[in-house]
Structures are given as structure tokens and as C-alpha cells.
């Protein structure tokens, strides 16, 4: 922008009278004010973190499963039972008092939490799904060294997650559990690379166990 120096105009002739030149400088303060006002507005209103989505496949309704088809045997399963801000789990199949397993032991719920601590669900899942996590590290390494392309990586990872030795998880909730608890658990399961996550209805026996736990 052109600036006209003030008071620099010496040496004018005496005879001619010139019209006074008004300064070409414009006061920009209001414009700057406005610009920053708009800037503040857009900075504050714009949302950068777009919401993401967490995919979860539900089991098909019971009617769709043909009669006589046995439920798949849970080989390496863990069942989570959720209540409001509480999380319990047991491993393997469910054995009630009336129907104990071979050794006569009965299913008991074990308490855990969403924290990253020793008792937390993340440590637990990391331990239980070690098989998948270790093999995944191998795959990660291969991908890094460019021994496999990423499409192979994804398909191999998917296959690995549903192998026999991989952990499978069932999620059961009582009628007080919040969506946050549910999503948090699904998130932890995804972090631990659990491939089979099935939210299913709670059985009366499990509900009783849960109620007894909650009373304490």
C-alpha cells in the first residue's frame, strides 16, 4: 500500500495553490475487529473431529437358524455380564448349581473394571487373547517389511481372529446397564483384537448371580 510521507513536501512553488491532499491511509481498525470477530466465531463453531462409527455384527434372530442346528461350541469363550458401571465376567461355559461341570464346580462371576490397571479388563483381555495378539505382531512386522500387501494383511488378520484358539466374547446385560458401558466394553474387545463379539440375552441363572454380586 502506498504511504505518503507526511511533511516531506518541501519546495513547492509559492504561486500555485494546491488542493490539500487527503491522506490515502484508511483506518483499518474496524475491519480488523470484524475479521477477528469472524475468525473467533468460526474457530469456536467448527467441529473438526467428525464422529466415527464402531461396527458391530449382531447374531441373527433365532428363527433364522434352522432347527436341529446346535449352537457352535464355545471353545475359548468369555462371557461378560454388565450392569450400571459394573462389569463381571466368567470363562468357558455356564454351570449352574443344578448342572455343575465334571469336577462339580459352579460358575462364579469375577469382578473387573474398565480401567487400565492390573484388575482392568484391558490387561485381562490382553492375557486371554495373547494367541491372536502375538500372531498379529508377526503380521504387523511382515507388513512393515513389505513382505505382504495390506489386502493380504487384512484378510489374514480377519482369519486369525476367528481361529479356534482365538478368544470369543459374549456380552450380556441386565436392565440397568448403560450404553456407555456396553460401547466401552466393545471398544476394549476391539482393542484386544477379539474377532467374535456377540451381544446376547442374559439367562435367568446369570441374572441371579449378578444380583447376588450387586447386593454385596
Amino acid at each position, binding site marked *: 500500500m502506498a504511504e505518503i510521507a507526511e511533511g516531506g513536501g518541501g519546495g513547492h512553488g509559492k504561486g500555485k495553490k494546491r488542493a490539500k491532499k487527503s491522506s490515502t491511509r484508511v483506518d483499518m481498525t474496524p475491519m480488523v475487529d470484524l475479521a477477528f470477530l469472524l475468525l473467533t466465531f468460526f474457530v469456536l463453531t467448527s467441529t473438526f473431529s467428525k464422529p*466415527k462409527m*464402531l461396527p458391530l455384527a449382531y447374531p441373527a434372530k433365532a428363527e433364522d437358524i434352522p432347527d436341529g442346528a446346535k449352537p457352535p461350541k464355545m471353545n475359548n469363550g468369555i462371557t461378560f455380564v454388565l450392569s450400571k458401571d459394573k462389569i463381571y465376567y466368567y470363562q468357558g461355559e455356564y454351570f449352574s448349581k443344578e448342572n455343575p461341570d465334571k469336577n462339580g464346580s459352579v460358575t462364579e462371576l469375577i469382578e473387573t473394571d474398565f480401567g487400565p490397571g492390573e484388575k482392568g479388563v484391558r490387561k485381562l483381555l490382553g492375557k486371554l487373547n495373547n494367541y491372536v495378539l502375538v500372531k498379529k505382531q508377526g503380521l504387523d512386522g511382515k507388513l512393515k517389511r513389505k513382505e505382504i500387501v495390506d489386502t493380504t494383511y487384512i484378510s489374514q488378520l480377519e482369519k486369525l481372529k476367528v481361529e479356534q484358539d482365538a478368544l470369543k466374547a459374549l456380552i450380556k446385560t441386565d436392565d440397568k446397564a448403560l450404553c456407555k458401558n456396553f460401547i466401552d466394553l466393545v471398544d476394549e474387545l476391539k482393542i484386544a483384537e477379539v474377532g467374535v463379539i456377540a451381544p446376547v440375552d442374559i439367562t435367568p441363572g446369570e441374572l441371579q448371580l449378578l444380583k447376588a454380586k450387586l447386593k454385596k
Partner: protein
Amino acid sequence: MPKLKIPKSSPSIDMTPMVDLAFLLVTFFMLAASFRASEPVTVNTPSSISDKFIPENMIMVTIDQNGRVFLNLSGEEARREMLTNMLGKYKMGLQDEQIEKFTFMSTFGCTMQELPSYINTSADARNKFQTKGIQIDSTENNEFHDWLNFASTAALNSAKTAFEEAKLNGKNPIADDYKPKFILRVDSKTVYKRAEEVINVFRDLNINNLNFITSSELAPTN
């Protein structure tokens, strides 16, 4: 001795660069900002490490803290198709302008009875509209089931149209990219059992692959 004169510098600063910068930033934020359509309900979603973006063609069911159910279907044509089918099933009539207004509504939630007055309410006043949301209670007259059923047909139809269009334009489209996604937007404090009622309607319609909207969270480093 002549006095040493320090040239007086003008107290006004040249603000041009600052203005340039300010307007540059304004332009950037204006273009980068994506305004959220005003929603009739506020929902605080839980967070997860997932990094999947929400696709264009989707059916979104919102469940607020009190368990009210809202529906959102992408695409004006699809919304029109869904509404026409719904009106036909419930033997209701709406004025053309009301239908027109409905096609511009993204998220909505009301009973069929309330629908005309819900549409007539202005967008700003809609979040104060007293409603129980879309009804799913009775099995006989499950309005949500019907909405969802028509919504998924409409979404599939619009997906087909988009797919064919892409094919005509000489692209090599993948059908899976066009398929509508079914999305649940639940509040952190919604009781899960209520969400399950909604999910069971999805499962009744043989829709088992669902997605939960979450805000993003950093993945833990080992």
C-alpha cells in the same frame, strides 16, 4: 552543535499484513467448517478407537437419554419415498407442502398422529416439541418397525440408482460402497435395554450389521 533529531515514527502501524492474515484464516475456517444440521435432540455419544467414517448413504436411529427414538434417512428422494409408503400404510394424507417440508427434515421423531403438527413446527422449535419419539412399544402397531422397513427399501433403491449412475459415467463402482449403512446413535446414558429394543427391530428385518456412532479416542499404545 546541531541537535540530533530522532525521526518521529508515526504511531499508527500498518495493519495490512495482519488483516490479510486474519481474512485468510477466516476464509479457511469458513470453508473448513461443516455446519451440523440442527438436530431435534442432543446426544452425547460414547467414545471408541474406531476410525471408520460415516458414509453418505445411511439410516441413522438416534436414541436420546430418555429413550426416545428418532430416525434419519439420507437423501431427499429416499425420504419422500419412505413418507409416501408410510402415509399409504397408515391411510393418512398430508398436503404437498408438508411432504415437501418433510423431505428437508433430517432427524425426526414423533408418532404418526403427531406427524402433521410435527412437520408444521418450525425447525428451531422442534427440539421443544413434546413427543415420545417414534413408538416401538406394541408389537401389533409397531410404527418404528414400519418406518425402518420403508426406510431400508428407500435407501436400497437410492443406492441402486447411485450405483447405476456411476456405472453409466464409466466408473467401475463397487456395490458394497453404495449399500446403505445402519447406524445407531445412542447417548452415553441411555439404558442399554432400550437400545436393544431398537436393535431387535433391526434384527427382525434381518439387518444384523449395525454401527454405533462414537466420538474418536486415541488408541492405547502398548
